[in-house]
């Protein structure tokens, strides 16, 4: 066990995966010599050589396109998109190619890629350094979509993703890189070293894709969430005094339906929270699934707390971010519903 930040945990996951399997190659913009603008690949080129970890031209579509070709050859590329906001040029290669290659070739060719990208707001990044595009991937059959909320899971999930035989979209909540941010931007920063989930096992382990984690057990109400919002939910629960059961989904596709339905059956109330814009966000899918499976247990409508349906603004970041106050209000309203 070592105390690590999320950045260190991600670096460590790369190292473990690259050591165990020499087919793992790592590349992307500024990831080679420099080690990535968030330093998640720092030291890899030095350690594994520039044929295992290297820089690329600024062309997201090309990065994913060559990764698919490499995957078809038999390698296991793990690539970085500098910000999730810049993944759209690669969207065709991801959606039309990586996601469908195994199916359309009946297993003749596969695309075992991991596509990492920092996601989410909270760093005054404005509309092009703050987005949460997860639901644009969860709609696409053939992709898996993963998002850790802490160093322990980040390492285990990333190793699992790299070892997975299917393309995985790996979203890294950038506001969590250096600490468990709970939405209280006005308070001092808490480091991962002060948090139990900053304890990261040494060497190889995986967190299986498709398994949610009960972040906080509770009996009043279920909060379904992931990424940064896990910590926001914890703060909201503490501040509202509501005994919320907070479920950190960790993997959106595949989804851990059992953990979700078990919790909502128990609590009878549910709030769904994410940073992404509301309409057609992944929260919609969660609402659909919950009401489908446990409608009769529902004592209140499922509330969605999400980013507004606007671009992520720069100066008004904290008016946009669904912080503990907004989430707490929704939790209280859901508890009050009769």
């Amino acid at each position: 066990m070592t105390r690590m930040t999320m950045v260190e945990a991600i670096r460590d996951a790369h190292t473990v995966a690259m050591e165990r399997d020499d087919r793992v190659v790592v590349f992307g913009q500024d990831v080679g010599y420099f080690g990535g603008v968030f330093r998640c690949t720092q030291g890899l080129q030095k350690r594994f050589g520039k044929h295992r970890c290297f820089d690329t031209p600024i062309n997201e579509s090309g990065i994913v396109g060559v990764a698919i070709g490499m995957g078809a050859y038999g390698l296991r590329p793990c690539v970085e998109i500098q910000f999730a906001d810049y993944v759209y040029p690669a969207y065709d290669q991801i959606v039309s190619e990586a996601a469908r290659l195994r199916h359309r070739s009946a297993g003749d060719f596969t695309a075992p890629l991991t596509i990492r990208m920092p996601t989410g707001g909270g760093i005054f990044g404005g509309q092009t350094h703050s987005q949460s595009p997860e639901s644009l991937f969860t709609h696409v059959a053939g992709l898996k979509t993963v998002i850790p909320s802490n160093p322990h899971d980040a390492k285990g999930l990333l190793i699992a993703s790299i070892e997975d035989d299917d393309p995985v979209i790996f979203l890294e909540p950038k506001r969590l890189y250096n600490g468990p941010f709970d939405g209280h931007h006005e308070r001092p920063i808490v480091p991962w070293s002060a948090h139990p989930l900053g304890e990261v096992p040494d060497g190889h382990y995986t967190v299986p894709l498709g398994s949610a984690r009960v972040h906080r057990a509770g009996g009043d109400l279920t909060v379904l969430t992931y990424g940064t919002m896990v910590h926001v939910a914890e703060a909201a629960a503490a501040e509202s005094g509501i005994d919320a059961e907070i479920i950190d989904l960790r993997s959106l596709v595949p989804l851990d339906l059992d953990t979700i339905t078990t919790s909502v059956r128990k609590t009878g109330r549910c709030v769904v929270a994410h940073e992404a814009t509301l309409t057609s966000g992944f929260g919609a899918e969660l609402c659909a699934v919950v009401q489908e499976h446990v409608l009769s247990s529902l004592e209140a409508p499922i509330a969605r707390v999400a980013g507004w349906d606007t671009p992520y603004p720069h100066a008004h970041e904290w008016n946009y971010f669904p912080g503990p106050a907004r989430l707490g209000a929704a939790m209280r309203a859901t508890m009050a519903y009769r």
Partner: protein
Amino acid sequence: MHVVDAEAAEPDGLRLRIPEPKARPGDKPVFRDLLIDRAGEVRRPPIDVRPADIVDLGAEMIRVLDIHGDAVGPWAGTLDAEQLRRGLRDMLTVRIFDARMLQAHRQGNTSFYMQSLGEEAVACAHRRALRPDDMCFPTYRQQGLLIAADYPLVTMINQIYSNSHDPLKGRQLPVMYSSRDAGFFSISGNLGTQFVQAVGWAMASALRTDTRIASGWIGDGATAESDFHSAMVFASTYHAPVILNIVNNQWAISTFQGFARGDSPTFATRGHGFGIASLRVDGNDYLAVHAVSSWAAARARANHGPTLVEWVTYRVGAHSTSDDPSAYRPQEEPFTWPLGDPIDRLKNHLIRIGEWSDEQHQQCVAEVEATVREAASEAERFGTLRSEHSSPASMFDDVYATLPDHLRRQREQAGF
């Protein structure tokens, strides 16, 4: 002072140029703009040539077969008579296969077909210049790559018919073959995507100090897609062992090649801005295609980097079974195409060098026809689009390596 403004005699206003082909239905076909060199005239550089030293070749046209049917010049001599006859048979097989499949489409055995009439030399000769374990990343018009790799015709037809023996289990549109063993990457319906994937495969081969190379394919129209650029950038930057093939068959559905080419004289010149060796070749000349493909393959394999090749040919048929070219080009255009027919030209050459005869040709045609007919009948026994398929339950397989819970539930809901 202000030299420039004085010099600029301003027009009444700007005007956008919308390109137009030289001829439309009703007009006489014109190929005035086509740059053609005489056979044998274009030099053959060493395989380690610096791209900057062959920039002129991007606007010339490498040809081996002259008007008499002789093989001339520095690019001649890569093939013996046996290989030439095999090439002829490959091309005949493609042509006869296409004709049979068009008929099958009319009969309702399949929903769709795309022929490569007139373009057979390009894929057939190229494949024979590669090694079996090199990997092609084709478009939908390179059936010749499979046929010249001796891939079973019946398996191709099974795919086209989406029948119970379709290796792709009825999932893909007809002609969207996939065969790793035959060095043929799964075809995508999305234009261009495979071009950069080919570069990635080649990069992987080089990363692993392998000796295999990749060969990527794209149509003239599809060079306008962004993936073309991605492929060029990555190939240029990493010096990938890849052949980047542009099949310029003059048309992109109803749109003539001028829309993709714009103001550049040829598609081969697109390579110049990337420092990539670029050649332009008579694509209806089997010998030229084979010679240049061999050159580019040797160049790549010897670690001298990528080659871009424009194969100049003509799409004689309709774009697909959904298309009718009489709506947008003169009906006689295919017959006035200056580079002739690839099969006729190779046949004439073989006859001229005394290695073939009309009788042998007729017999060969009859044999191939029989082979294709038999393959089609065999495939029909496994069903057609209208009859037997793989189980619909198989639709849920291969979305992921293992079936996730949500798909298991959906499969149950679907009754499987």
